[in-house]
């Protein structure tokens, strides 16, 4: 497989399909999009199968000097591999979720999604600073159109807010990148990851990158675009937004902020912790009082992402691994939750929680899947959520028991709002006749739910499959961070080794 430009191919397939969708009629566009995303998923599986765990840090590298000042440089490590897998896994499901619910301008819709897929893979595979920025920013255009054209009633406000918020966050990052390339004389991300910037400069660079990633993540208090965007976006838009786009923020921290500016990261860790602690408690409480299902899940995303940020800035292996697993798990689980909302939204065309109730009676299969994803979101052992949250909190506990204590309340609050949601929608009496008449999952919805459910259980029962490819990369990052690691408050001290009293000699020997 070496030498074969599989990453370029993975970017090219959806692009070509997107152009085909633009000129095709609706049924053809749906099929083209599904086939293209399945091809990309197959390529992703091939990528994972051929990824050499424990081999070179950067694999499947490609470099072509196509542009002035930067290169078409692609390559992945284990972290990028996992996020690419998440993207290509969710995309066919998104196409499936839009199969019937999108009726107008299907070709353009599918083209926007395929373009989005190409850009997401590009973001995670880019090995050149400017190439990364182009992919990172370009994602605004298709998402702006997806929210604005196919969204709900308040879609225009939400699309503006999404676009301008994220753009404002990102532009300063570009200036920082220009400065870095000017200073280091290279735009190669692997080289820059080992470059030591002066501590004074690191501070400004870190803040510029933080502005971008904090908005993308999103962290409190710049999270307000997310609930609007989620609520207004069509179901598949929400899935991809929560599933993958938010991960770009976390990926940015792990790829840029931490390895490139370790000193500044340590210096500003308190800021990240403070914002994350507020996010965990505040957005969880806000989620508790929502009437709109999508909004509730959107706020829960902010809370979960805060667990990611504390894990990332814990400066140890457990925290980093936990953050990655939370990201992957949240990608699956929040995607699945939005899909679940989409399933009943397609039937009743409302997201108001009180319009439902007692769905366990007429939709038992749906209730089962919704239960599984709710439990995964809460972090029940055996599901993916548990592994990630446990590792993240273990990581941060080594650094600060206070931060760990506050963030752990998020799990309790998470259980509160998710179970409260589940109880109101699924249990109780069937107070609305139309909700009571809804049919259970059909084959298409079944096919969308089962793969995610299997993924959630797999990650929960045997996370080693997902941790193994990332282990070497996280260890390398941990070694890089060692120079700046803040002192923890647990004050671990090795006790004085006590010498065991010599055993009394056996009586026989006397």
């Amino acid at each position, binding site marked *: 497989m070496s030498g074969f430009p599989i990453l370029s191919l993975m970017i090219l397939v959806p692009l070509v399909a997107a152009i085909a969708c633009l000129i095709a009629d609706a049924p053809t566009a749906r099929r083209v999009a599904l086939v293209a995303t399945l091809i990309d998923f197959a390529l992703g599986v091939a990528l994972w199968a051929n990824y050499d765990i424990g081999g070179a840090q950067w694999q499947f590298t490609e470099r072509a000097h196509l542009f002035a000042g930067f290169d078409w440089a692609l390559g992945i490590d284990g972290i990028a591999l996992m996020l690419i897998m998440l993207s290509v896994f969710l995309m066919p499901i998104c196409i499936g979720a839009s199969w019937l619910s999108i009726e107008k301008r299907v070709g353009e819709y599918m083209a926007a999604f395929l373009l989005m897929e190409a850009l997401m893979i590009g973001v995670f595979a880019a090995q050149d600073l400017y190439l990364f920025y182009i992919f990172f920013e370009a994602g605004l*255009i298709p998402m702006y159109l997806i929210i604005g054209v196919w969204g709900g009633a308040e879609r225009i406000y939400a699309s503006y807010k999404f676009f301008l918020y994220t753009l404002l966050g990102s532009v300063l990052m570009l200036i920082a990148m220009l400065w870095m390339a000017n200073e280091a004389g290279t735009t190669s991300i692997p080289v820059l990851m080992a470059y030591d910037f002066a501590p004074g400069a690191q501070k400004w660079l870190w803040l510029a990158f933080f502005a971008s990633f904090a908005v993308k993540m999103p962290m409190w208090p710049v999270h307000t675009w997310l609930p609007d965007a989620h609520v207004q976006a069509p179901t598949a838009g929400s899935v991809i937004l929560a599933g993958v786009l938010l991960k770009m923020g976390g990926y940015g921290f792990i790829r840029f902020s931490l390895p490139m500016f370790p000193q500044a990261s340590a210096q500003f860790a308190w800021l990240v912790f403070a914002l994350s602690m507020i996010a965990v408690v505040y957005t969880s409480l806000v989620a508790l009082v929502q009437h709109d299902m999508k909004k509730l899940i959107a706020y829960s995303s902010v809370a979960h992402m805060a667990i990611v940020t504390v894990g990332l800035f814990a400066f140890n292996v457990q925290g980093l691994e936990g953050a990655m697993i939370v990201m992957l798990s949240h990608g699956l689980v929040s995607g699945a939750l939005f899909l679940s909302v989409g399933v009943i939204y397609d039937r009743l065309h409302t997201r108001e929680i009180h319009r439902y109730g007692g769905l366990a009676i007429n939709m038992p299969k749906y209730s089962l899947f919704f239960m599984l994803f709710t439990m995964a979101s809460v972090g029940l052992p055996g599901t993916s959520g548990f592994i990630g949250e446990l590792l993240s909190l273990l990581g941060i506990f080594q650094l600060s028991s206070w931060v760990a204590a506050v963030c752990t309340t998020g799990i309790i609050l998470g259980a509160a709002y998710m179970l409260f949601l589940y109880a109101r929608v699924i249990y109780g009496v069937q107070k609305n006749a139309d909700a009571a008449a809804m049919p259970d999952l059909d084959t298409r919805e079944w096919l969308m739910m089962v793969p995610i459910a299997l993924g959630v259980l797999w990650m929960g029962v045997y996370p080693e499959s997902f941790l193994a490819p990332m282990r070497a990369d996280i260890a390398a990052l941990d070694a890089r961070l060692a120079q700046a690691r803040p002192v923890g408050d647990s004050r671990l001290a090795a006790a004085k080794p006590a010498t065991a009293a010599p055993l009394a000699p056996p009586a026989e020997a006397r």
Partner: protein
Amino acid sequence: MALLQALRIVAPEELLSVAGLILLLVAAWAGDKASRTISILCVAVLAGASAMVIPALNSGAMGPDTSAFFGQYRADAFAAFAKLLIYLSAAVALIVAPPFFDRFRAMRAEYPLLILFAALGMGMMVSATDLITLYIGLELNSLAAYVLASFLRADGRSAEAGLKYFVLGALASGILLYGMSLTYGFTGTTNFAGIHAALAHGVGTGALFGIVFMLAGLAFKISAAPFHMWTPDVYEGAPTPVTTFFATAPKVAAMALTMRVAFAAFGGQVAVWQQIVTFAALLSIVVGALGAIGQTNIKRLMAYSSINNVGFILIGLAAATQAGAAAMLVYLAIYVAMTVGGFVAVLLMRDADGEPVEDIAALAGLSSTRPGLALALAMVMFSLAGIPPLFGFWGKFVVFQAAVAAHLVPLAAVGIAASVIGAFYYIKIVKIMYFDEPAGRITGKGDASHIVILAASALAISPLGYLATRWLGALAAGAAASLFHPL
């Protein structure tokens, strides 16, 4: 021999003037029915002139061999780069005009000739290395432009545009002339190299006033804030093909002229003009962005957009380095492609009777009625907003890169943050075209030549444009090097 050498150097200008005079006679005898033939011939002449300047661009010509008439004129790679853009824009203005004017039965044989003479004047502007050459070129271009602005004589808005352009243009020329007279008075020469040498040991108050007045006059011509007020009125009133021309060729010429004046004449005293340029750059970005928000006419919006773009180009000038000059040239090339695309899309906005429509509200739902036009205009808008992967991003990228390399990080940061304000109105156009219900007003068929040009510029600003960055960057770097090469 020196004369022959000089005549060889100015060959493109000779071709344009001789061809212009001959075609003028043809027009006088054959009348307006020959206007289409004359247009075609003018495009051919411009193509010939382009072919004559290409070798200088490719070889990165610089130094004494490119200088003619005792240092009054230079045909170096820098001039060649600007001339190519000017000739290209002029050719576009010629090609898109006949279908537009035919509607009003106003296609006259003078139109192609005026464009040709304006192009000649602009060619002189970008080659000028003497204040006198500069002024002759500038006025030749301006006088042609005043007539072009009021070309639809029967239309009140067009006449108003011509008059406004004339009065304010004359004021700007007066300011420029005053600055030139001060500069001449305090340096004793009109030659750029001479001025550079005379100012080598510091700038006195008189010369300082000269520099400031000259920059103010030039800021009028490039419509940089705070001297931008005429732009929206003139762009709105002038016939759309003429607006297409105004927004491209004279912008390139005046910007190149400003660069030549700043670097060749005042290059030794960067600190004197750098803060003026920085101020004008940031103000143009903000004024262009804020002014555009309330507009209801697409041509006025594009006018503010061009003010906004001039601000970004001036950031490259504020960097005051060779890399900054190269970045400005790259930006200008991309700007021409975007602006041509934008205005040709405006030309394609016709109602059922074929009447031109300029209301932004009429664009509502264009994506469902005219998907191709909407896609192209959306690409232009995202490109003007500088959103990757469209090619407009590259222009902004290179000027900010130059600013950061020149250690002007605060300027770059403020400039790029202000670009977000501009993004608001660009994405508003996209919103109107894609999110709103169809207004159903733009239903008329477009002319084939317009569609071809729109498709070509859409292709140029598409992500495929990045494949041209190395080539474009190398040409611009060569041109910038020739600008910095001493005589």
